[in-house]
């Protein structure tokens, strides 16, 4: 009788949890990526897309599916509209505890991009959307806000790009 009751009132069994945990662990097994890195990938993907179009961050769904011998990534990202300004090159977000040197190397490599000067002039940090800001971690956020007049890429070390 107790069994019957517990079954009637059980909303969600553990099998769904098992399935979800397996999905994630198999993905990291297959790609040799840690679950943290996979999460960071999802965040960055959404952040990059939201620089070009306005997306509904709450409804974004990024999943991975095992196919015969490969892994496919499926992203369902609802687009609310276009961004008004040209895309700002925002620094990527990182998982907690990841070393900052990656960020520095991305900044230095931006010197090769042809539209860099253009960006520096026309896109101040203020054009970043809420979605962007939400996905940029606290430290980077602070760095962006501390200087109203410069786009993020001009800050650390892109001396070659100065006019």
């Amino acid at each position: 009788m107790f069994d019957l009751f517990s079954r009637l009132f059980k909303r969600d069994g553990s099998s769904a949890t098992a399935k979800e945990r397996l999905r994630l662990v198999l993905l990291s097994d297959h790609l040799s990526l840690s679950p943290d890195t996979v999460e960071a990938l999802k965040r960055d993907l959404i952040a990059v897309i939201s620089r070009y179009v306005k997306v509904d961050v709450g409804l974004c769904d990024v999943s991975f599916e095992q196919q015969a011998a490969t892994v496919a990534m499926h992203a369902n990202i609802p687009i609310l509209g276009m961004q008004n300004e040209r895309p700002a090159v925002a620094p990527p977000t990182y998982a907690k505890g990841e070393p900052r040197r990656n960020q520095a190397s991305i900044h230095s490599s931006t010197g090769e991009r042809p539209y860099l000067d253009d960006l520096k002039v026309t896109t101040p940090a203020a054009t970043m959307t809420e979605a962007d800001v939400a996905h940029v971690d606290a430290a980077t956020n602070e760095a962006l806000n501390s200087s109203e007049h410069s786009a993020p890429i001009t800050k650390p070390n892109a001396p070659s790009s100065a006019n």
Partner: protein
Amino acid sequence: MSGRRIVVTSGKGGVGKTTTTANLGAALAKRGRKVALVDADIGLRNLDLVLGVEKRIVFDLIEVVEGRCQLRQALIRDKRIENLWILPAAQTRDKDSITEAQFLRLTTDLAEFHDFVIIDCPAGIEHGFRNAVAGSQEAIVVTTPEVSAIRDADRVIGKIHERKLPMRLVINRIRPDMVKSGEMMSVEDVCEILSAELLGIVPDDEEVIDTTNRGEPIVLDSTKRLAAIYDKMARRLEGEIVEFTRLDEPSLLNRLLAGWRG
């Protein structure tokens, strides 16, 4: 004649490789096929015990490979099921006593006078696994609906893909009542996660322990609930399209009234 050489593997131990090998082999033999079952678990042999032939071992697989006896001398004929033969593993040697090439030669020789050579693979993905796979053309991966078994099955499936062997899945020890209440992953869940084609679904049943205790294949007694399940598995292996037994029916009352619907 050249029979099919099939490895039964799982990665994780204790999910039912030996039980599957024994009963699938017995089911095929009951259908009139000539079947050789090979225990590739050198040092930890068990297939002989599950099939109740442990007292009749004279020579083992390693002695055949080392040329100390003829292959036919080491094969044990099952006295209950015609056409079923067992090649026992060595119990006091280790897994490095045989190479992949030797294993391939051995199973190829067996395939010359059997329709099916079914290899019971040791757990793990090391030397013993590589040997068993080297001797096979097809694979059957056995798993249970548990996270650890599925993860290991996934690893093994990856290894089998690398060798480009066709592979099918047996999901063992399904508990329909638990699946219904959401406490166990369903057959569909497991197939989806492993993206594998299904060969068989075996419900969890105390018959397995009971028949293993006696050293009898389940298919020997056609009144057993699992006998029909293994027979269907054998037919699928032979290319027949056979519907899977529905597992979601038996409420206790149904079971008492109607018995198992094979």
